[in-house]
């Protein structure tokens, strides 16, 4: 058996002493896409924030362990995690514009990010960034680099966010509701672009979303969460084809599907 990329074992996370994630265990293999679905308050975003060591004020992992490539990172400090964040684990946020510094151009932040982790020239970084945009099938990369986040639309910002996370070629990409702030047409494109990222770089992706349709569309494995606990966990076929838990069935039934008819 290969070593999992990320392993979460019996984790409990508390905010201000109140548990929001209970007894959660997950494994992410290299190159796989895991979708974590759940409604608001299910603790799904907390899971990846805990893995990144980016819990908000008052939050802490109170039980269980987190391993990255066999290395225990449960209570690792900023210094240790700082080396992993970026080159090993990348993150994409729900509100892409807000996750970038508002008063500096994307380009400046890009250089800052790369130079924090490796020694290289700005020209090379720039070329790499444009290459990623190219691989996403997105041609207006130059334009994005020169802009400040507030000058860009939600979709453009999310592309900048994905590029910024992918520039260090992380082995694992954690995405927190990456499409839910976007319009449907842009949503579809961003999903396609993320899939391309996996094809090109072999990056494993953990995708947190409330949209079960999205998970069915792109995940290899699915985890369903409710009120801080894991309800069901399995391959996409298992979960979408023959869910065992009532809640999963309910969740699936609630999703309305478009009747496209015969074309």
């Amino acid at each position: 058996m290969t070593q999992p990329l990320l392993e979460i074992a019996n984790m409990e996370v508390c905010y201000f002493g109140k548990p929001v994630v209970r007894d959660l265990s997950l494994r992410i293999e290299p190159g796989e896409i895991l979708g974590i679905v759940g409604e608001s308050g299910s603790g799904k975003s907390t899971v990846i924030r805990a893995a990144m060591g980016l819990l908000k004020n008052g939050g802490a992992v109170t039980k269980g362990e987190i391993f990255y490539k066999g290395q225990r990172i449960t209570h690792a400090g900023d210094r240790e995690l700082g080396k992993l964040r970026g080159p090993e684990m990348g993150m994409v946020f729900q509100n892409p514009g807000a996750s970038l510094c508002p008063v500096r151009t994307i380009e400046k932040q890009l250089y800052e990010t790369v130079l924090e982790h490796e020694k290289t020239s700005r020209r090379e970084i720039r070329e790499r960034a444009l290459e990623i945009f190219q691989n996403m099938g997105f041609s207006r990369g130059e334009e994005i680099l020169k802009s400040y986040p507030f000058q860009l639309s939600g979709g453009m910002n999310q592309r900048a966010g994905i590029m910024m996370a992918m520039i260090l070629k992380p082995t694992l990409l954690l995405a927190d509701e990456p499409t839910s702030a976007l319009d449907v047409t842009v949503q579809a494109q961003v999903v396609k672009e993320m899939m391309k990222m996996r094809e090109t770089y072999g990056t494993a992706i953990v995708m947190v979303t409330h949209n079960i349709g999205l998970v069915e569309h792109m995940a290899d494995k699915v985890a369903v969460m409710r009120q801080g606990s894991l309800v069901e966990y399995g391959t996409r076929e298992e979960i979408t084809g023959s869910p065992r838990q009532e809640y999963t069935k309910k969740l699936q039934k609630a999703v309305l599907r478009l009747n496209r008819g015969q074309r």
Partner: protein
Amino acid sequence: MEKILEVKNLRKTFYKNRSPFPAVEDVSFHLMKGECLGLVGESGCGKSTAARLIAGLLEADRGSVGLEGEEILGQKGKKKRDVYTKLQMVFQTPQDSFDPRRTLGDGIMESMRNRGMKKDRARERMYRLLEQVELDRSFGDRYPYEVSGGECQRAAIARALAVDPLLVICDEATSALDVTVQAQIVELLKRLQRERKLSLLFICHDLALVQHMCQRVLVMYQGKIIEQGTADEVIQRPREAYTRTLVDSVL
């Protein structure tokens, strides 16, 4: 069937730093009694502005809105208030649509009290309305921040029904809710529509939901209505390129 709402050449331009931004341009459509009409489009297409123009919350630049054959644009004062209470709205964020310092019951009774109904009778009616939206009587005494989004939206629906409105405009009424809650609210709306022969203008960006709820659909893009027809027509055989992109984007 009779037309309950007839909108003609509705137009509204906003100004930002003196440069005009046409939010609603020359919008015309009608709505039949007992019909549920869908209005779809992406954010910024002007669908919410259109709703507010019809509901009298914004002043239109031009155009006419007829409610049961009576022109309601340009009414003033008390007359305006009387006319517009026949037209109710359910908002996207249920908790924001109730005054945080007043109970849900107060909010539901406000329109009845404004029409001079006695307190006891209004209270009785408020309880009946809560029952119709499948809420316990005790919700009448709760504050918006004490209840969940779904419960609050039910109360908002009860509030809209309080005046026996001719038309209810749902402005993204379900999009801030979780999917399972959304399904319940949609069922509630469908049931009420059937039972009370309610006319609904259903504004939504979720095509699947619109197909599920509505008989006819309008597609709005950059302030204009670019396509309309029955729900299945528009979704299964879109004529416009934009509508097609919209349909294809649904996963």
